[in-house]
């Protein structure tokens, strides 16, 4: 049996294969095995490269499952037993400060965190600050206005715009009159009469 190139989750690989892999680590919720300790380090580097490519070209803010999917498509010949480890390796990048998190709200108004590259931190945070300043002066912002206000790197994807608007509502700086499931058509300052 050909040894795997990347670490594998013990529960997702054959017993025979696992017996041939001496190096063992916990990765997220899985116990993982690999040919050597270096295999884990090499795979971590691969995940980092793929994650940065996924998040920076173009700039994207992604949930953890979406990021794992994006990373998986960028690593050739990734077996399912290795693919399930992507979540753990991605979380490791968060703890190292290489990926950052932005708390926001989903279309259903449920809180979640979007991940983005630490290299994009100034752009993301400055954009949120500018968006909030405009909201304070205009009292309401539509998603179309937000798309014009945000830097082109960020507004290229509508999902990024929704995440930015959701982040202001999540922190209690703004509110929305939309029902859950609709998304952020318009956000406004609290106690400002909605414009119908």
């Amino acid at each position, binding site marked *: 049996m050909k040894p795997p190139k990347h670490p594998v989750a013990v529960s997702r690989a054959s017993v025979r294969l696992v017996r041939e892999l001496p190096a063992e680590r916990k990765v*997220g919720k899985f116990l993982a095995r690999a040919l050597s300790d270096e295999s884990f380090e090499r795979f971590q580097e691969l995940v980092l490269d793929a994650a940065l490519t996924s998040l920076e070209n173009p700039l994207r803010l992604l949930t953890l499952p979406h990021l794992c999917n994006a990373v998986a498509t960028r690593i050739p010949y990734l077996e399912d037993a290795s693919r399930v480890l992507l979540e753990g390796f991605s979380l490791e990048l968060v*703890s190292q400060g290489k990926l950052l998190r932005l708390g926001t709200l989903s279309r259903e108004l449920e809180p979640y965190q979007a991940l983005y590259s630490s290299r994009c931190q100034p752009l993301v945070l400055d954009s949120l600050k500018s968006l909030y300043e405009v909201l304070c002066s205009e009292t309401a912002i539509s998603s179309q206005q937000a798309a014009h206000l945000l830097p082109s790197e960020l507004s290229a994807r509508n999902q990024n715009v929704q995440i930015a608007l959701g982040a202001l509502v*999540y*922190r209690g700086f703004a509110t929305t009159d939309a029902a859950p499931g609709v998304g952020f058509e318009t956000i406004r300052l*609290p106690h400002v009469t909605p414009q119908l």
Partner: protein
Amino acid sequence: MLRLSSKATLIGESGPVPISELSVGDKVLCMAQGSPQFVVADHVSQSAPASAVRLCTDAGDLLTARDTAVVTSAGLRQAGELADLRDTRAIGRMQGSWPLLEVLSVVLPMRGKSKAADLAKAGSDCRSRLMSLSQIPGGQSEVFRVGSHTKRVIDRFQDSVIGESCAIEPGPAGWSWLSPKRPPRSTPSRDLDPTSMVDCALALWQPILEEQAYRLPVEMEELRSYTFTLLHYLGVPFETSFRPRYLPMHVELRLKPRETPHAAVQAVLSVTMNNLVQLTLKARGCYLIASGLLCSQ
């Protein structure tokens, strides 16, 4: 070297004070030879961006530069050392063999003529800080953000802090907003007693109604740090839980004693900080109390 997040809260002579408001010559609470003492700040300045560590514990959290020492049950440890104690063989998991951290757990010295005078000053200071922490820009009027609490809690906040009756707008994501029908009073109608201080600070958190607990997004560091320091200052026992452990998204707070008098580390996160404040104390051999935890220069 003491370098802390600019949103950290220390304890000044009249109660919790953000480190960002500290000036040279101000006094801050420290522990010296096991006793609480107010020590003069000798030097306060902005620090250059640096690698930092957020220590999340069951007694609150603290964000310091990697080279700032924290008092632990195993002696002084730099925050960076604590970050390195994370089990590197557990990838994407928050586990490690961290020592317990020392927490402020003594009765504080009173500086004024009497305990009553001190508490009155602390109550007045607390009221203005809660107003400032809850206020967000509104359209035509001032707007205050609170958690979506019961009417009783919100009434208490508007009576004790804003001092005027308010229109309430409930919102999504656990927030409600208050808009005073008349401008808020500049002076309180009555002193904010310790129980009211705690109730009003927690009114700014989101309630977890089923279990008498409170929640706050992890991004809201300033309010969180103030609340933890206020609770430590008033000697109110509390326990915090950063969830989920690996990727803390919010912190939960319960008013109940912790299992040990020390703080148990729950998560250690490495971050790069642009806003660190460097502080030098006039006295040596004392430990600064920041967000209730003990640090050393």
